[in-house]
């Protein structure tokens, strides 16, 4: 699957996620993954939305996102010009005798052991989506019994930021504070 990554700055207000998710549903676009969190400005949240580039008209998705009133900025992050990460927690059922073998795999992929019971080990792995996939493949032979994985987050490499431009549309925080008084 060739994925495309959109970074979306939105107002941090109630209902914004519903507006974004609703637009995807209404227009029959598929979301491969979605991650939402705060930014350096508390009035703004950042969504990282991953879509399948082959089946999704990405330009149209970006334009429709941009039309949403609470969306401040939409930027597509080029795979090569952005750092992309996903986090996974993986519970593996494993015979204590084979634990060493598993830990070797974990070391290769820079995954950490965060919990252990007589029958299971929980690994934490943070990495680029591709590397995470190969870790999971390598764990298949042990029988992964539970997997939880975040959506992708991504940030452009180099000195440019999307928040500089995205936040310029907002009133300066000082003025906001004055109004609140």
């Amino acid at each position: 699957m060739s994925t495309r990554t959109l970074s979306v700055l939105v107002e941090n207000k109630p209902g914004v996620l519903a507006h974004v998710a609703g637009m995807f549903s209404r227009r029959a676009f598929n979301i491969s993954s979605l991650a939402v969190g705060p930014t350096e400005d508390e009035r703004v949240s950042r969504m990282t939305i991953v879509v399948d580039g082959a089946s999704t008209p990405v330009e149209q998705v970006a334009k429709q996102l941009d039309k949403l009133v609470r969306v401040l900025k939409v930027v597509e992050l080029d795979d090569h010009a952005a750092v992309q990460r996903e986090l996974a927690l993986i519970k593996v059922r494993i015979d204590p005798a084979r634990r060493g073998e598993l830990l070797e795999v974990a070391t290769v992929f820079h995954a950490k052991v965060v919990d252990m019971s007589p029958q299971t080990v929980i690994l934490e792995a943070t990495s680029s989506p591709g590397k995470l996939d190969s870790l999971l493949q390598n764990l298949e032979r042990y029988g992964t019994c539970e997997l939880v994985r975040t959506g992708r987050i991504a940030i452009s490499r180099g000195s440019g930021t999307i928040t500089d431009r995205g936040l310029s549309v907002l009133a300066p925080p000082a003025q906001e504070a004055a109004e609140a008084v």
Partner: protein
Amino acid sequence: MQLTGAQALVRSLEQQGADVVFGLPGGAILPAYDPLRSSSLRHVLVRHEQGAGHAAEGYAWATGRPGVTVATSGPGATNLVTALADAYMDSVPVVAITGQVPSALIGSDAFQEADITGITLPVTKHNELVTRAERIPAAIAEAFHIASTGRPGPVLVDIPKDILQATMTWGAWPPALELPGYRVSTDPDMALVREAAALLRRARRPVLYVGGGVIKAGAHAELLELAELARAPVTTTLMARGAFPDLHPLALGMPGMHGCYTAVAALQEADLLVALGSRFDDRVTGRLADFAPGAKVVHADIDPAEIGKNRVPDVPIVGDVRAVLAGLTESLAAMIAEDGPTDTDAWLSCVDGWKRRFPLRYTQEAGGPLKPQYVVERLSAITGGDAVVVAGVGQHQMHAAQHFSFTRPRSWINSGGLGTMGFAVPAAMGAQVGRPGELVVAIDGDGCFQMTAQELATCAIERLPIKVLIFNNGFLGMVRQWQELFYEERYSEVELGTAIPDYVKLAEAYGCLGLRCEAADDVDMVLEKALATSDVPTVVDFRVHDREGVFPMVPAGRPNDEITLGPEFSSEEQQAATRREMPSAQAGQTKGKEVLAR
């Protein structure tokens, strides 16, 4: 100044310049109805909230100003949903205000609770659940701003009862709008406009493909100027009827599934389409891959997401179509001054030939069954096009759009995108409120009429003398036509019967004048009587031929090249039309029958 939330709401509507609201009160919105009594707002008390929604739409279509509708929580709000979806599809500026259960009860399945912001999310341009009374003025101001700027659309503001009852401090008007993510690009890129003008200067077979955006932008005068300068023919979509005068020599009529042959053929043969505030809807394009195969495309729209959505243009222009048209005319005039006029003579004589040879055609035989097209043509002739015509959805809508000769913008109101049966009566009511003293005529089907007929009561009580012309064929006519054509005449659940209800008695029961007309000879007399009645609404039960279809027709999902002229044309004529044959000198009139053609 301390106000309740409800007072702030009413005051905001007044400040916003709203003069009328269409609504129906209930528990959660009750606080707002108290200050409404002493306000400058006219409240039109509907019989069903769907009627209020469509009335707000009709008002907006007729005036260009946002229509306002008010409903209570739960079922009141959900009854607005169809109208909001309709307004969203047709880009109609509507502001809907709904009551909500008190904040503390939200999420508890309280009495008359519905998540209306959730429900209307995919059918509104924007919506908001207000959580503080202080927010009300800005929420209302933002709703009007969003509804009426850029590509217009419906905005819903949901206000919990306790927020309406809370007190707040009324500040300065207008309040600061908090819309950092809302941007409208009105100024077109003039380099692209010049590029488009250059294409138009060189085009040999151009067509101006005009959509509803031209009416919304108030750009009809600019359109006329460009068309005449470029000497390019103009087709006006269902949403744009009236944007260009139908009797103008450059008018091609309506394109699409039931469009005029000439408009459909001209789009297919064009070497340049200039799409203006139109959106390449499937009902216009037929099978998209086969639409206007040889044409370069200039697409101008205020909504960037429309550009390239269905057809990738050669010249994309985002901006206000009025500014685009003015820019195109200016650039083209300069190019013409330098290089001489456009060369479209051959093209114009070709489309004129098609117009003469393959016109809209039907036959009203003397003493024969009454044809709906005849009623439309008589209405058009008697009024001279000086009427606001409102239609529902179906055969009557297409006959009205085809056969009424529109002379000016905002004289045609219908449900285009959503195709909402029952639209006409309440929309006509709203149009009449917005254009008092003008002639407002709803052309409706018997199926459509029965969906919202209760608003006749509102019209009668409010002294809104709309005329409702029911084209009563006793069928869900358009569905019947599809069953005839595509299901080998296996008619399934489409017969309504002409006799029940008795529309004359129904009209009288609602305090309206009820008339019936069954023969072509009586049409003028009945229409004149209806048009002369100005104290009460009038309903006319036109008993029209139940086998009459709507033609021409392009079957759904088929290429526009497969246009069928219909039973009024011979197979030779159909073949000639399919070949898009140039007319011979004597072609045109036919066959001893009284042929009525535009």
